[in-house]
């Protein structure tokens, strides 16, 4: 049997997780919905709306060429937000597998592993790492303007 020929799987986390899918440049990534407080549209945000919140650019952080950065993921824990290009939707990830050991770089910190949802596989961002990075100097601040927003309630999500 071919499945057996592929040998034993790496240990996988098999708990259903609601995951927010988002785009940074051409890449699709995910983050556990429970880690987010809200998702905001950058257009019209005022600097005062993010007072005391360290806003990281996902492009700078992941080494991806600059993009529109139209959405901001505000983390539930601490005072951190991540600017991304767009938010796609929420999915339920049935399995999270660890990164293959061949990956030896900073990505081992960036991601909790690979989440699988239906036919999709995408890296799952590690929110703890974002908290740590936000404590480094020179957080990037957002432009000023009005606000459009959607909020993530306890255990659920909605956004513009």
């Amino acid at each position: 049997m071919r499945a057996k020929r592929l040998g034993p799987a790496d240990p996988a986390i098999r708990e259903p997780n609601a995951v927010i899918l988002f785009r940074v440049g051409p890449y699709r990534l995910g983050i556990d919905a429970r880690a987010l407080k809200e998702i905001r549209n950058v257009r019209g945000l005022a600097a005062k709306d993010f007072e005391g919140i360290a806003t990281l650019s996902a492009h700078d952080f992941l080494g991806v060429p600059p993009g529109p950065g139209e959405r901001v993921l505000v983390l539930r824990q601490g005072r951190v937000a991540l600017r991304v290009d767009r938010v796609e939707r929420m999915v339920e990830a049935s399995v999270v597998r660890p990164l293959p050991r061949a990956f030896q770089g900073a990505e081992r910190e960036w991601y909790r592993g690979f989440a699988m949802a239906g036919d999709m596989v995408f890296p799952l961002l590690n929110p703890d790492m974002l908290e740590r990075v936000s404590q480094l100097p020179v957080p990037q601040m957002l432009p000023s303007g009005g606000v459009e927003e959607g909020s993530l309630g306890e255990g659920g999500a909605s956004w513009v």
Partner: protein
Amino acid sequence: MGLKPSPQESFVLFPLDGRRFALPAGDVVELSRTGSVQLFPHTTAALLGVLVRRGEILPVWDLAQILLGTEEATLKYCLVTRRNSAGEEWTAVPVSGECQMLHCEMLPPPEGSAKYVRGVLLLDGQPIEVLDLKELKAGCASAYASEHKSLGQEEGQA
């Protein structure tokens, strides 16, 4: 190292950006389309992304970049290679086109060959390098480690 050829063995020949290389057939489990290689941001040199095969996440090695220094080779298929007895994980190797099975003798690697050359096959008078993926991966890992060590030293000096 003896110069006697090894007994006949089976090899998978594959094209890579205008050249041909080989892997021992015993190292190769299957050939799949590259369409499903998932690219994502990462910092490990020599890796392209991952491939999902039967629920497993396999790292995809950028062989064209490692062997030929080609940044954007046209890649059509992935050879999925066997996990070894040392518990090394399954990997995928993208190639440029159709593969070919060859049953022949492997000659010892010419003097001065890279460590990852296990031997050579002669096909139509042309030598084809048989790759040792384990050596190749080990070389990439140590290159990564030394690069980061030297970067750390530079930062320390700064």
